[in-house]
C-alpha cells in the first residue's frame, strides 16, 4: 500500500510535469507576442561586443566582419517544455527590401543539432503564399515542380514546402535562402515520410516552438540527399497528392542561415549565464555570429576544442563506456545518457539526492587531448516542482551504449562555439565545437 501511494504520488507529479510542459502551447499566430529583451545583460560583464569599427582587429578567421553581431536568446516557460532555447527571427519576401513584406516569428527553437530554418505555416500567416517556391530537384526532369521536404529528427519529422525567403536574425540577413514551411498543407504527406518519420512535428503545438533555427555544423541540411533519393527526406511534387523522392543539389537544400550571411558566417557562439541548482524561471543570453572575427567572438587561448565528424558527433567516455554518437546539442533539453544505477521516473533521472558525475569528451577522431567534464544530475521531480524553465542538472535515461547527448543543461554558464563546415580560424579547421 505504501508502495502504491508512492507510485500514485509520483504519477501525479509526472502528470503535473506534462501539464506544465503543454500549458503554453506553441503560441500559434502570436507573432506579435513581443518579449522585452535585455540587449546587454549584466552578466556579460565588460564585453561590449565591438567598438563599432570594422577594421578587423583580432580577426583570425580572415573573413568579413561587421559590428552588431549579437541577438538575444531566451529560455522561459513560453515554449512547450523545459530548457528550450528560443530566438526571434523576421521572415521577408525576397527581392523586396523595405517593402514591409515581413513577419516576425518568435519562439524559434535555437538548435545546434540541426541545420536549416523551419517555420510553422501558422506563424507565417499571410506571408506564406508570397514566399518564392523552390523548384529544380535533381530527379525532376521538368525542373518545374515544387520541392517539399520531410525532415527526420530524433523523435519525429517535419513536413512542408521548401520556399525561399530572406531570414533576418538581429541585424543580419540571410538573403533568399531555402527554408522549410512546416505544416503548410500544400502536399499530402508521403507514406514514406510517415513510415520513416513517426510523429509529425510540423505544427507549433506538436513541436513546442514556432519553428527551428538550425545553426549546426552543416551548411546545407542533407549531405546524403546530394547523391541518393533517401526515403523520407526530399521530394518533388507534380501534384498535391503525389510527391516523388528525389536528390537535391546543395544550393537548393534548406540551409544554415548563418552560413548565408555576408559577414561573420563561419559559426556561432551560444552564451548563457549560469543558473542555480534549483533552476531559474527564465534566462536571457546571447547568440553571437562569427568565431574569431572580432573582439566578442574570439576563441580564448584556453578554449577546449573538439573536432566533430561529418554529422557533428564527438566521443564521450562515461563509466567505462565510449559513446561515439555524442554531441553538444542545444536542441536537446536534457543530458541524455545511459546509467542504469540511477533511479528514473517517466524516463527522467530521479536520484534520491543530487549526483556529482563526470564524463570525458574527446574529438571524433580521437585526436587532441580528452577533457573530463563534471556535471550534476538532480531529481527531475524536485526540479519540476519549482515551476522553473531553465535547469543545468536535468537528465533523461537512454539505454543505448553509443549515445551521449550534452543538451542545453551543458550550455549554462558557458560560451559554446559551433564552427560551420571547414571554416578556418587561425590554425584550426572546422567543423569543431569549443567551450
Amino acid at each position, binding site marked *: 500500500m505504501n508502495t502504491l501511494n508512492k507510485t500514485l504520488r509520483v504519477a501525479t507529479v509526472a502528470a503535473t510535469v506534462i501539464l506544465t510542459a503543454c500549458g503554453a502551447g506553441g503560441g500559434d499566430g502570436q507573432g506579435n507576442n513581443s518579449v522585452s529583451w535585455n540587449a546587454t545583460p549584466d552578466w556579460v560583464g565588460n564585453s561590449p561586443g565591438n567598438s563599432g569599427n570594422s577594421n578587423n582587429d583580432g580577426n583570425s578567421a580572415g573573413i568579413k566582419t561587421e559590428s552588431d553581431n549579437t541577438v538575444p536568446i531566451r529560455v522561459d516557460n513560453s515554449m512547450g517544455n523545459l530548457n528550450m532555447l528560443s530566438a526571434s527571427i523576421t521572415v521577408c519576401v525576397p527581392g523586396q527590401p523595405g517593402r514591409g513584406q515581413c513577419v516576425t516569428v518568435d519562439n524559434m527553437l535555437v538548435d545546434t543539432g540541426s541545420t536549416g530554418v523551419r517555420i510553422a505555416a501558422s506563424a507565417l500567416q499571410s506571408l506564406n503564399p508570397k514566399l518564392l517556391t523552390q523548384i529544380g530537384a535533381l530527379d525532376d526532369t521538368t525542373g518545374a515542380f515544387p520541392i517539399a521536404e520531410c525532415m527526420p529528427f530524433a523523435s519525429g519529422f517535419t513536413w512542408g514546402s521548401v520556399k525561399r525567403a530572406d531570414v533576418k536574425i538581429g541585424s543580419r540577413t540571410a538573403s533568399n535562402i531555402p527554408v522549410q514551411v512546416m505544416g503548410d498543407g500544400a502536399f499530402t504527406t508521403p507514406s514514406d515520410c*510517415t513510415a520513416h518519420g513517426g510523429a509529425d512535428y510540423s505544427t507549433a503545438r506538436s513541436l513546442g516552438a514556432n519553428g527551428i533555427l538550425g545553426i549546426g555544423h552543416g551548411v546545407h541540411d542533407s549531405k546524403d540527399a546530394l547523391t541518393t533519393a533517401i526515403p*523520407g527526406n526530399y521530394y518533388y511534387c507534380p501534384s498535391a497528392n503525389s510527391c516523388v523522392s528525389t536528390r537535391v543539389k546543395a544550393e537548393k537544400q534548406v540551409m544554415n542561415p548563418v552560413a548565408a550571411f555576408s559577414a561573420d558566417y563561419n559559426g556561432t557562439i551560444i552564451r548563457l549565464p549560469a543558473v542555480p541548482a534549483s533552476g531559474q524561471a527564465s534566462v536571457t543570453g546571447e547568440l553571437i555570429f562569427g568565431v574569431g572575427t572580432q573582439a566578442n567572438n574570439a576563441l580564448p587561448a584556453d578554449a577546449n576544442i573538439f573536432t566533430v565528424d561529418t554529422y557533428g558527433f564527438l566521443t564521450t567516455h562515461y563509466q567505462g563506456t565510449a559513446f561515439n554518437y555524442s554531441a553538444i546539442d542545444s536542441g536537446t533539453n536534457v543530458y541524455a545518457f545511459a546509467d542504469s544505477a540511477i533511479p528514473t521516473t517517466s524516463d527522467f533521472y530521479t536520484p534520491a539526492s543530487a549526483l556529482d558525475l563526470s564524463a570525458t569528451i574527446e574529438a571524433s577522431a580521437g585526436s587532441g587531448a580528452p577533457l573530463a567534464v563534471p556535471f550534476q544530475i538532480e531529481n527531475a521531480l524536485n526540479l519540476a516542482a519549482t515551476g522553473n524553465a531553465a535547469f543545468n542538472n536535468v537528465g533523461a535515461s537512454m539505454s543505448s551504449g553509443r549515445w551521449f547527448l550534452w543538451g542545453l543543461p551543458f550550455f549554462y554558464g558557458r560560451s559554446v562555439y559551433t564552427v560551420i563546415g571547414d571554416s578556418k580560424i587561425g590554425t584550426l579547421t572546422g567543423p569543431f565545437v569549443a567551450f
Partner: protein
Amino acid sequence: MSVLKFAILAATLLPLSSYATLGGAPSAGASSQSAPRAMQSVAGASAAGAARAASYTLHQSIDANGVTIREYVLPGNVVFAVTWDGPIRPDMTALLGSYFPNYVSAGHSRARGTGPLIDGNDDFRVESAGRLGRFFGMAYLPRLMPAGVRPGDLQ
C-alpha cells in the same frame, strides 16, 4: 510476361524489405545471421530463489538503405524487441507492425523539439535518437522481455 517480370521483381525485393514485426514472427531474410543468447536471470523475490535460464535469439540484417536491424526473438518465435542503427530511420510501420501507432503517440506525449524520444509504458517502450545521416533506436515489449534482460542489453 509482365506478370512473370513482376514476380521476379517481388522476389528480389522481398528479402530486403521483410523486416520482423514487433510482437510477431521474425523475418525470414536470407541475409539474417542468427545467434542464440543465453542469459542467467537474476532471481527475484517472487521466484523464491529459483534462477531460470531465459534465452532469446538475435537476428541481424541490413536493409536496402544500409540500416542494421536487430530482432530479439523468444524461443516461441515472437519478436520482443528490435533495434535499428543506420543513416536513416527504417520503415517503422514494417518494423513495429501493430505497435507503430504506439510509437507515434509516444512521440506526441510531450513537446520535445528536436531532442531524443524516450517514452512508453508497460506495454510498449521506445527510444529514438539521431540526426540526418545517423539514427539509432530501440523498441521493445516489456511484458515479453525475458527475465534478466535489461533495455541496455539491446544494442
